């Protein structure tokens, strides 16, 4: 492998999938959602992530199906472009450059070739003034087109994109802002506005929060901040408008949505109850409670058979029209704050952190997949604003992953704090954690930190609390209760001059316990509970401390608030070295001697990696991110890398992940690693694909290349070019068996690569046929396929006049060129295949 070790900071996994409403494809097979700077495609049936449409360079802020072609999707992004995709194959068809940051996109069947976009008013961007503009997408054959024909529809619209909706057959557009509902009629070119009073006699809050238009009737449904839903009618005449009010939600309505036939209205809010109102049947409604976090968006499929709700806990729920949940797509939950440390479950190697309220989530970093939630609080969650809830604030695993200790807390704001310490044992049979002991009054005040002893024989938990004491907990018989042996009870209570203990840490072999009491670090022997020595290096309160690992286990490192990083040698009990550097967090690597120190100075975070035995840093990375680093963790690699470059050597055994205060999960990666990631992701794509026919495997591989060619602006494009099909096969044959994926996967790949590809054309569905024809047939056949596509599109044209698409004869040249290019690569790939054959 080529050594190209340049350590970069990369954002990893778990981006938000609930920013904008998810959309369901017309055939109800896929769910698409905007996630970070890509659009993710999930299967509705298996809930698996199939692929993502990558190409935007900034947050994707809106997606919508192309009304002219149901296999295409528009996406807009804050990078100022609108892109048109074929979402089944993941091909970028076109890029329209608008030039301003875009915040939402709307389309209407009636307005062909026009997209409506939210852009910020450039005059005063601070006030969050947005305007709605109609953009005429130019019909050009180019890959990248600049769309300059902007015409403002309305200024001063709400920044919330769910406050804008298209009315029946695109005749009008309704948008609400604060207390005003505006309806703009395209034909009359006129805006009617209706306003409500800020509050009525009963103190209701009337501000609009969301809006939806009936698909067949002249009716607008609006949701309000106080939980009311109003149905507006007769708004064609400004004076004679009427509205009726429904009230069920007790808090703001986050979303309203009509089903495609308009028979039902769906609404959701903070209560996490999906409510289905029968249109025109007054107060008749159905409920689907306890869906998870509060509902942010609801969307329906075009046939009305599936609903999709996206929730505040980064989750998309797929619901059948019979009100049955049939699928849950869960992303990495990022609550308001991650209160627990980032942890690694020693068994599953999953990242563990706060998840849903009252839960711990287990997240596989390798597969970027949410594994499961562990219910810690075990209480019914009440969705109510301003309610003081139990939160998991601390958690710790023991070294074997057999025990999990959690602390839940309630009443951080008020004076009476409630908290309890829970210990969970791993159950082999159910493969999850089972509650073993609950200690309700472990301390008299808040628990500051806790850690398990790292020895293999005895497990011991040490907690430090603000009441000036630290306690050691052991599994064993309690003299008072005489219960079974496997419950936990307090073994020792220690204090030091009534100072508040802050941090605690066990040495690598658990023979020593270090507890910091403000400026003093005390060293205890856990066997006899004797205070061995105290270490002190004023001024400054100890902020974090840790023991060195492996050969450096004789060193104790601590940081203080007064910008001092100290290292003591515990054999001599003397200060080995100290430097003046502001360090907020120390993170030792369990598999090597390295310690990572994060420092936050002058508005950016720096990283130092050092070994405790020498005060010189091994690796320094300035300006890792602009925010303050919140939590960090070293994740052991499955197989160590063999970088010999000094700067990236520390990443060989484990990988450093960290969480910033903006809840971004970042990591450091090296070039070789990216290499490997790429190949593994390719394998993953093949694993997860919808229809795993042998032909799809080949074509899928090929399409990826194509996609790469099409998107030179792609951030991943600077990654090395993927090896060709034949090379992969030879590589697979030469790699040792134990590092290969399952034989079944390889077998299908291998067999399929030996097949002559065009034999499958006749048996495959239309989609496959189109694409395969695109790739490997003669020009004559291409023309034929074009004709076919034209034929099928002309049907669409009957419905929607003047569609802007590549199928118009004018654009066929562009397509031809594209196809030629495709064919070129195709042949080289075929040649590679032939070469690989024995």
């Amino acid at each position, binding site marked *: 492998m080529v050594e190209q070790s340049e350590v970069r900071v990369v954002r990893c996994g778990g981006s938000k999938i609930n920013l904008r409403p998810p959309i369901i494809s017309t055939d109800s097979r896929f769910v698409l959602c905007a996630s970070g700077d890509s659009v993710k495609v999930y299967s509705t049936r298996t809930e698996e992530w199939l692929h993502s449409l990558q190409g935007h360079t900034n947050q994707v802020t809106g997606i919508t199906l192309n009304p002219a072609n149901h296999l295409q999707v528009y996406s807009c992004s804050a990078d100022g472009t609108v892109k048109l995709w074929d979402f089944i194959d993941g091909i970028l068809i076109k890029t329209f450059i608008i030039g301003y940051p875009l915040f939402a996109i709307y389309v209407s069947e009636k307005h062909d070739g026009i997209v409506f976009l939210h852009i910020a008013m450039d005059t005063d961007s601070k006030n969050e003034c947005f305007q709605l503009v109609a953009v005429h997408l130019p019909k050009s054959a180019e890959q990248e087109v600049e769309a300059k024909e902007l015409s403002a529809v309305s200024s001063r619209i709400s920044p919330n994109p769910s406050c804008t909706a298209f009315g029946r057959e695109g005749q009008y557009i309704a948008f609400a802002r604060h207390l005003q509902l505006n309806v703009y009629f395209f034909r009359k070119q006129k805006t009617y506005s209706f306003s409500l009073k800020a509050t009525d006699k009963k103190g209701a809050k009337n501000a609009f929060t969301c809006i939806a238009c009936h698909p067949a009737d002249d009716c607008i449904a609006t949701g309000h901040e106080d939980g009311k839903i109003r149905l507006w009618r007769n708004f064609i005449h400004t004076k004679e408008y009427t509205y009726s009010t429904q009230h069920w939600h007790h808090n703001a309505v986050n979303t309203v949505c009509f089903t495609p036939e308009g028979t039902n209205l769906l609404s959701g809010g903070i209560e996490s109850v999906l409510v289905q109102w029968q249109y025109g049947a007054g107060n008749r409604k159905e409920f689907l409670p*306890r869906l998870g976090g509060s509902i942010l968006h609801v969307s329906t499929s075009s046939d009305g058979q599936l609903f999709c709700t996206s929730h505040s806990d980064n989750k998309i729920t797929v619901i059948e029209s019979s009100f049955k*949940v049939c699928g849950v797509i869960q992303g990495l939950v990022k609550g308001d704050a991650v209160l627990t440390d980032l942890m690694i479950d020693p068994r599953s190697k999953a990242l563990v952190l706060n998840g849903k309220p009252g839960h711990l989530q287990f997240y596989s970093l390798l597969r970027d997949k949410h594994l499961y939630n562990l*219910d810690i609080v075990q209480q019914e969650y009440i969705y109510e604003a301003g309610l003081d809830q139990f939160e998991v604030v601390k958690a710790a695993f023991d070294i074997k992953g057999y025990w999990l200790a959690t602390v839940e807390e309630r009443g951080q704001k008020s004076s009476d704090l409630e908290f309890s310490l829970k210990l969970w044992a791993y159950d082999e049979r159910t493969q999850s954690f089972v509650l073993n002991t609950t200690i*309700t009054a472990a301390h*008299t005040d808040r628990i500051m930190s806790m850690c398990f002893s790292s020895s293999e024989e005895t497990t011991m938990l040490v907690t430090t609390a603000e009441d000036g004491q630290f306690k050691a907990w052991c599994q064993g018989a309690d003299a*008072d209760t*005489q219960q079974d042996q496997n419950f936990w009870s307090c073994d*020792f209570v220690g204090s030091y001059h009534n100072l508040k203990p802050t941090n605690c840490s066990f040495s690598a072999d658990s023979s020593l316990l270090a507890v910091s009491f403000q400026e003093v670090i005390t060293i205890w022997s856990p066997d006899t509970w004797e*205070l061995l020595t105290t270490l002190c290096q004023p001024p400054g309160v100890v902020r974090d401390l840790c023991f060195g690992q492996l050969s450096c286990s004789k060193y104790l490192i601590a940081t203080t608030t007064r910008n001092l990083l100290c290292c003591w040698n515990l054999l001599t009990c003397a200060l080995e070295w100290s430097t003046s550097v502001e360090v907020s967090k120390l993170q030792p690597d369990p598999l090597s001697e390295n310690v990572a120190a994060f420092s936050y100075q002058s508005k950016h975070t720096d990283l130092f990696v050092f070994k405790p035995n020498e005060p010189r840093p091994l690796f320094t990375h300035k300006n890792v991110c602009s925010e303050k680093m919140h939590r960090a963790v070293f994740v052991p690699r499955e197989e160590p890398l063999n970088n010999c470059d000094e700067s990236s050597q520390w990443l060989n055994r484990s990988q450093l992940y960290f969480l910033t205060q903006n809840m971004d999960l970042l990591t450091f990666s090296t070039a070789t690693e990216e290499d490997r990631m790429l190949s593994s992701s390719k394998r993953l794509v093949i694993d997860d694909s919808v229809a795993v026919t042998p032909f799809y495997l080949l074509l899928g591989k090929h399409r990826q290349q194509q996609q790469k060619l099409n998107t030179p602006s792609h951030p991943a494009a600077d990654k090395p070019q993927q090896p060709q099909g034949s090379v992969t096969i030879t590589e697979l044959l030469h790699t040792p068996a134990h590092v290969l994926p399952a034989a079944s996967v390889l077998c299908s790949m291998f067999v399929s690569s030996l097949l002559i590809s065009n034999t499958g054309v006749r048996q495959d569905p239309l989609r496959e046929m189109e694409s395969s024809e695109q790739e490997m047939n003669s020009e004559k056949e291409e023309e034929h396929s074009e004709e076919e596509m034209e034929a099928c599109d002309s049907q669409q044209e009957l419905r929607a006049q003047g569609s802007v698409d590549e199928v118009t004869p004018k654009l066929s040249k562009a397509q031809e060129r594209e196809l030629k290019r495709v064919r070129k690569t195709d042949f080289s790939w075929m040649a590679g295949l032939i070469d690989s054959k024995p």
Partner: protein
Amino acid sequence: MASFKPTKVQFLPKLGEKVTEETLYWKNYKSPVQIKEFGAITKIDFSPLPPHNYAVTASTRIHIYGPHSQEPIRSFTRFRDTAYGGRFRGDGKLLVAGSEEGLIRLFDISGRVALRQFKGHSKAVHMTSFLSDGFRVVSGSDDLSCRVWDVPSAVELSSLTQHTDYIRALAPSKLNPDLFVTGSYDHTVKVFDMRSGSSVMTMQHGHPVECVLLYPSEVLLVSTGGRYVKVWDLLKGGQELVSLKNHHKTVTCACVSSVGNKLLTGSLDRHVKVYNSSYKVAHNFDCDASILSMAIAPDDEALAVGMTNGVLSVRHRRHQKDKETLTSRRRRGPSYQVFVKGKNFAPRQDDFLVSKPVKQYLRKYDKQLKSFEVSKALDTALQTWTRTSKPDVTVAVIIELNRRGTLKNALAGRNEEILLFKGFLHVKCVCVCVDLYQQVFHESPVVERLLQRLMEVLGREAELQQELLQVLGILDTLFTSLTPRKEVAALAAPPVAFVMLIDGVMKAKKIII
């Protein structure tokens, strides 16, 4: 869609004894049968032969009871003075007893009149027994002598005067016909061998010996006296194995169960204690009066305890049979037929199984909480039955309401009854109650009285805590000046609880004031 999570009722660890097989075994006795005798019962002895009749010596009589009869099946009343120490022979056909006037009588079980009378003791004979050959009787008397009698000829074979005080305990060896053990008020236990004609072993008990007992293996000897029970190892030349001090009055009797050879001791403190094989108390029987004598049937079927007030209390073992009849009676009912329907249907191989979704059964208060009917849920939790027998449920519901922030709503508009609930001492709840009903407190005398009482209790508690803290302060200074620092840390344990309590009390006090 997640299902409703029911309210978690906090389960508190049960303080007290650990439940083991052994405690279960000893718990498995029925409630005692009480039989009134004429005087203090000084000796009970079970016949070694089934059906294990037992002889009860009380006052001037010896009664023989059958295993289940409450009336004596036979009684020996020809004593002029108090009878003592009635004991069966190994074959259960003969009975020997001493008496206050110094005579020893030998009875046939089926007859009434004494077959033999052994004269020779000058003072009361408290202990008599057959030696294991069945032809000799040994007796211990208050005249400091211990005599062996020949049954066929009714002559005294030997007299041993080696004790210096009353002999009140005697145990013959079952394995060797020439050995017996005596215990005396001179604080000693002696082992006599008839072949040498003198004591071969002497052990110092340290207190007047009330009872001696040989284990069936005859390796261990138990002596009781004063508050102590001591176990001696005879094979090690009478070395003291263990000394038990579990009673707080004189231990008067001891016996060994036949199942597992567990030691039982009875004492004047009205307790019978059962020890396990490591001599820890495994079980405890309580009696009404001071215990003088005790015996257990050879198959542990019955435990007979004699007391100073003349009451004989007999506990019989409960059998599996009894339990079964009880449970089967309970199960029988009209609905049984419904449940049994289709129970024994076995699915065939190609049957398609349709699983029914598991229905979640909720308690009434949970159902009400699920539909946010907070006031009704509190009503349910405050029902008399719940709040008396399951106060933890009531507290759990109150805590849950507090968590939901609806405690105030739920508590509003109630009458004074709510305050009568004893477990109502959740601080938050009292706080909200006081907030709500401040205006109307003085209208109800009941509530006023209760509050007054609460004030008193809290005041007393606070004072106590203050005193305790003072003591702790003194102790702390003492320990810091006396010992190295690690002791200080160890001593820091108790204050946690106290400080916590004090905190709670202060908080509550503040609320009340």
